[in-house]
């Protein structure tokens, strides 16, 4: 037979209050649509529905070395040091100041010391048009902005 071990009134009270407070912050975060309350911010991953006849924007990076052809570069901590989603959420700032791409080029070069450094880093988008929820037509390539080594 086991004997339940009860919490003291104070021990029970702070625990229940802490739990309710966190839930209150979580609910607030949802309606404020705020990520600022992390880890109890808005749970909005994949929450924006996509129009079945809309388009899918795929953000991309292209690098170029002096005299070379453009080539695709992956996002991520093991490539340019930052994830695609981080860059996408900073897009307006990067368009206003393409030098924000400089640390990405520097990180990529640091991981490819045996090769020429990047002379250009292009932030681009590959846009797929949808029709009835399926890909339709050719993928459109759009250059958003570019950083050029000085």
């Amino acid at each position, binding site marked *: 037979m086991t*004997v339940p*071990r009860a*919490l003291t009134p104070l021990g029970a009270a702070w625990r229940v209050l802490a739990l309710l407070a966190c839930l209150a912050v979580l609910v607030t975060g949802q309606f404020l649509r705020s990520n600022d309350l992390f880890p109890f911010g808005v749970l909005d991953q994949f929450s924006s529905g996509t129009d079945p006849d809309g388009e899918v924007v795929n953000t991309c990076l292209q690098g170029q070395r002096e005299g070379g052809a453009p080539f695709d570069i992956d996002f991520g901590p093991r490539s340019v040091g930052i994830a695609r989603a981080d860059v996408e959420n900073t897009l307006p700032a990067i368009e206003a100041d393409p030098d924000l791409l400089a640390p990405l080029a520097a990180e990529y070069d640091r991981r490819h010391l045996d090769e020429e450094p990047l002379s250009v880093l292009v932030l681009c988008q590959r846009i797929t048009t949808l029709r009835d929820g399926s890909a339709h037509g050719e993928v459109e390539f759009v250059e958003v902005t570019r950083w050029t080594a000085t």
Partner: protein
Amino acid sequence: MRSILLPTLPTARIHVLRVIVYAFVILDILTLSGDVVAHAGNAEYYTPLLLARILHLPAMTSLVAQLLRALIIVACVAAVAGVTPRITGAVVAIGYWVWMLYSQGYGYVAHDHMALMVAVAVLPTVATPPLFGDGGSVGSAAGRPAGSAADGSVGGGTVGEEPRSEAAGWALRCIQIAVVATYFFSIVPKILYTGSLAAWANSAILTWASLRRGSVLAHWLVENVPWIFVPAQWGGVALEALSPVVLFLRGRALYVAIAVYMSFHLATLVLLGIHFLPTVICWAAFLPLERWRELGGSRKHRRQQIRFAG
């Protein structure tokens, strides 16, 4: 209400959950949230979240990232080894929360870590007697007499009983609620952003995700059977909206429910490379992990029998 928020559950479950959670935290900071080290080179992207601003956390540097990671790993190993688990667990909690504030403070904020962050925060609040000790007489934790345990508990048991406590129950309940909340509250932004759950479920969100980050199988589905995504989206919404029910399931029904949610995560992993592992790990809080102790105990007993027989 007390039995819902403060159920009396075995402290042995906390022992096993500590091993699972702290082992995963090590894996997490080395892989999934390992971007903190790389973020040292992206100070321009640092957009500190509210807690980071309150704590005046500056942009991450390479040295601080390495030191913080080392501190968390050492504390996790110590906690798993049972070295003052409440103190080392508190170090993990503080270190890991700071780590995650840096992982998520550079533009994009994911929500797959909420339950894990709750887990590391609540686990140190539970006093636990030794797992394979003297039977774990309740109230003897940390050498205290029954009636004055360090986690604010009162009452006691006798030697040979399985220790249970409301403190353990609260911690487990918090993790369970955090897991469920991760699904349930995600329906709110879906409604706010698209107008209704039906509008979201009938949209092309999985096509969008498949074209952006889908596997070969996902791209094949987009090309050949794109209609399959709408029922899949309805299924996903149903799982999210019904998730609170899991808090009240027991026995076989609970296991079936867990299997359904695991299947959902397996599907998103196969199709989109989205694993949600930090949340998946926390589903362990729903399981009778204390039975691992019985398993371990019976193995120990068998080994002793073999030794005696030899």
